[in-house]
């Protein structure tokens, strides 16, 4: 391959172009890239497209951050008694201290019933809100569904596209009043995102239903995290609030229109709507300085060597939280066919490939989890060990430390499948899966 081609190819293949955006305003960075820009000719290929979305940075003092509208929904069922409720109170108070008078907060408690102890209000009197939080004592059972519903109702009182609308749910136990299946709570999450409300779920200790919490966060594009103890909870609460306070874009709609003949197979790890050659993915928000990406697996029909083929147009539209405008970006991506097999590896986009491998490895980790759930411990162990080896090899090959670490983690998971460790480790696995699939920032 000629030198000029080597330099030109990436530029040619990932030439993003911007439409109708004032040059001065800060923009979300849209990067569309093929994992393998060079593919084997005369053969049907399956490869990945990565659509990377990176939120712009705020000004240094953070004065231009978007105001938030947060409902803190706390589990105060009997199991929260003791250190857990104390730390939960502490975490909630600490979070509220980070807000200012442009923000709106509400606090909802749930046990067998639901109580709104702080109805949606502007954060002007922090002491009064904290005093309410200090009164929380734990008892009763767990009406998780109603808690989230009431939290969402508080958000709705001041719902506004210019605010970051977020329900922050804490639970340490199994929901036992009202709908309690992961599917049902997922449906609720899937509907809340249509209103621009995300639910971030924090599971505390070893008693909660991680599938339910995962699904609720996943479908509403919030965050899900596992807090092993009260101290962990304070840290995660803080990190989550950090995310909420750094939202730069909302209603992020990505449309990937594949070129004729190119077939979108699946989006790994995210909810997507695939119809014919069109793929639509909705993200509720982007955070400052943080990359979220979409990995789309595509099937490319055979092409002749030394020809270039357009693969897809990518359109991005989002609500810019600093300018309060709807910005639109677009990009396109192409591949070039070759006969020389070792050129393919040479030209592989290592970072993109690492991202793809992480997604695939995470899905594989989840498959092992399902096997373990079905009682097939040995099969699950084998899947995890194989996955670990593959991930570590890929990490070495694509120069990704993350991949190697996750590979090691998979190997370690393989040793935690016995009854004694499973309850807790399953939560940790779900936590890491969420972090990988949704590029959680903490």
């Amino acid at each position, binding site marked *: 391959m000629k030198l000029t081609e080597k330099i030109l190819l990436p530029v040619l293949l990932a030439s993003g172009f911007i439409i109708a955006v004032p040059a001065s305003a800060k923009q979300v960075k849209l990067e569309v890239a093929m994992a393998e820009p060079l593919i084997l000719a005369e053969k049907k290929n399956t490869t990945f497209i990565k659509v990377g979305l990176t939120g712009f940075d705020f000004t240094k003092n953070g004065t231009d951050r978007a105001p938030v509208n947060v409902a803190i929904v706390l589990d105060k069922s009997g199991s929260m008694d003791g250190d857990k409720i104390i730390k939960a109170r502490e975490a909630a108070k600490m979070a509220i201290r980070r807000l200012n008078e442009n923000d709106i907060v509400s606090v909802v408690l749930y046990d067998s019933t*639901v109580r*709104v102890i702080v109805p949606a209000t502007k954060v002007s009197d922090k002491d009064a809100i904290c005093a309410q939080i200090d009164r929380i004592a734990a008892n*009763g059972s767990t009406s998780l*569904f109603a808690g*989230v519903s*009431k939290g*969402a109702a508080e958000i709705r009182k001041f719902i506004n596209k210019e605010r970051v609308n977020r329900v922050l749910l804490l639970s340490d136990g199994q929901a036992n009043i009202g709908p309690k299946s992961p*599917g049902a709570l997922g449906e609720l999450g899937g509907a809340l995102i*249509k209103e621009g409300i995300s639910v971030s779920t924090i599971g505390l200790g070893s008693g909660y239903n991680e599938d339910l919490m995962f699904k609720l966060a996943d479908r509403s594009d919030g965050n899900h995290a596992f807090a092993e103890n009260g101290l962990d909870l304070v840290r995660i609460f803080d990190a989550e609030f950090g995310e909420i306070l750094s939202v730069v874009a909302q209603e992020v709609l990505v449309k990937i229109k594949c070129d004729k003949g190119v077939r979108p197979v699946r989006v790994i790890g995210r909810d997507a709507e695939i*119809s014919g050659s069109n793929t639509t993915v909705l993200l509720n928000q982007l955070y400052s300085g943080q990359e979220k990406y979409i990995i789309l697996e595509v099937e490319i029909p055979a092409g002749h060597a030394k020809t270039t083929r357009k693969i897809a147009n990518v359109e991005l539209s989002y609500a810019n939280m600093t300018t309060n405008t709807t910005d639109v970006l677009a990009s396109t991506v192409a591949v070039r066919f070759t006969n020389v097999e070792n050129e393919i590896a040479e030209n592989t986009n290592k970072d993109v490939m690492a991202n793809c491998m992480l997604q695939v490895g995470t899905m594989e980790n989840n498959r092992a989890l399902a096997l373990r759930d079905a009682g097939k411990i040995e099969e699950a162990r084998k899947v995890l060990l194989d996955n670990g080896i593959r991930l570590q090899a890929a990490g070495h090959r694509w120069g990704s430390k993350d991949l190697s670490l996750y590979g090691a983690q998979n190997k370690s998971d393989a040793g935690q499948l016995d009854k004694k460790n499973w309850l807790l480790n399953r939560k940790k696995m779900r936590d890491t899966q969420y972090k990988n699939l949704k590029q959680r920032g903490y």
Partner: protein
Amino acid sequence: MRPRLVIIFMLLVLTPLGLLAWLGVKSAKDERHHVAERFRQVFDGQLADIEQIIGKKVGELERQLHATSDIRIPTAENIRSIIRRERLARQIFVIGTDGVFLHPLNSEESTRQEREFFERTRSIWDSGARFGQRDAESNGQLPGKATQYSKTRKPSDPVQKLKYQKGKGQALNIKSVSPQELAPLSDPASGWHSWFWGDGLNLLYWRQPFPGGPVIGIEIERMVLLSDIVAALPTETGVGSGRMVLADARNKPLFQWGDYEQSERELPLTERGLGSPLEMWRLRYFSKDNPGSGPLNTRTLTGLFGGLSAAGVTLLGLAMYFYRENAREMRTAEQKVSFVNQISHELKTPLTNIRLYAELAEEKTGQDADPDLKKCLGIVSEESNRLGRLIGNVLTLAKRDRDAALRLTAADVDQVIKSTVEHFLPAFKKAVMEISINLSCPGNCMFDADAIEQILANLFSNAEKYASSGKLIRVSSRRYAQDIEIRVEDRGQGVAKELREYIFEPFSRLNDKLTEAASGTGIGLSIARDLARQHGGDLRIEDSKDGKGCCFVLSFTAFEEDTNA
């Protein structure tokens, strides 16, 4: 006597107390039922208010769905973008005039969500359910399909059809409906349909903007419906410290509020089903002091217990009073008996002397004495004998309670009879009574001669007193092995059958002309029977053999003669 008295007094106290308790509990229950009824009415009202909140919410959602279903250009792209922003819509479908799906299509182009939709709703299409009215219906292009509509509204009803056609323009002009109007829209060409899939009931809303035109259906996101209703419901009960529950078809709570924690199997104080399209859900109200069920509450029980205690104390007081009165009377009577007893003992000694000296005097006077003197002495002797018997009876009566032992001696029964008869000869003579004796019980045997003598004396004395009109007294004895029977018959008035047991009761005297004339204590026969029974025998009364008068039969068992005695 005492245990019987105690039982009587217990009954006297416990019976009215029990009656009072029963009445008390019954009236308390009635009262409680009444209160429960009032409670129920109050909470029924509350449930109705809650139902209204839900109805209002459903109305709102229905209007929202109505607006959503107003799709002018139903392209796949349009519909998908509507689903992307419409919270209530899980999926939207459009069925054309010929009953064929216009959207979604089960094809290459369809999304995963759309394919899943067909999976979920297969039972609806398999059942042949249809929504709205089809052109094909009139010209019979769909003969295979059963005419089955969604159960809520049936535009096939001719009257409704007519109405609907009149209101055609209106139906297309949905957006003019004022959002303040809270009652659900009554568009005849729209409705709800429910079906089971997965873990519960699913709902869809359909609407046919033009008669015979395409039907637009919206599959409801169930969780959104529930979440919106939950959001609209209060978190605290207005009055009362109860628990309000919105429950599903299996009575599992979906959402609840109020301070009371109901137990899993507890029955609600009152409940209420919801109207269409949520008829599978119920509103239930539980209360801490559910006055309609369970044990009576403490307050009622305390009152009842207090009242009963007071009544019990009063009754017990009364019973105690009567018991003491009775005891005092008994004591007085006992004192009297003991007094008579003592007097009798005191009388016995001088009487014995009198008898002794009277007999001595009779002997000394000899055959040729003054007949008047002889008569006088005879009377003295006779009367002292009578007095002796009386005293004997009184002493026996007093002894009876102490269960005096028999004094068995070897004696001849006939001899005892003869000597007793002899004592009575003067009296019988005076009463002009003949005496016939027929004794066939010779030989010695062991028995209490004094007791038998006393029995006979009582019988003879009675015969003399009450049966002298019969002019005859017949005495006979018989023996069957050790069983001895002595019969004393008279020809007097006899004793009526119903009174035959009564005359053996102590202190009983037949109150008639017969007894009025003669004096008596009323203890003779009682003592006689007791003595006979003490002797292992009996004294009973039978009809006389001649059918006139009465016959006393004394039977007892003689003991084997003790050779050592």
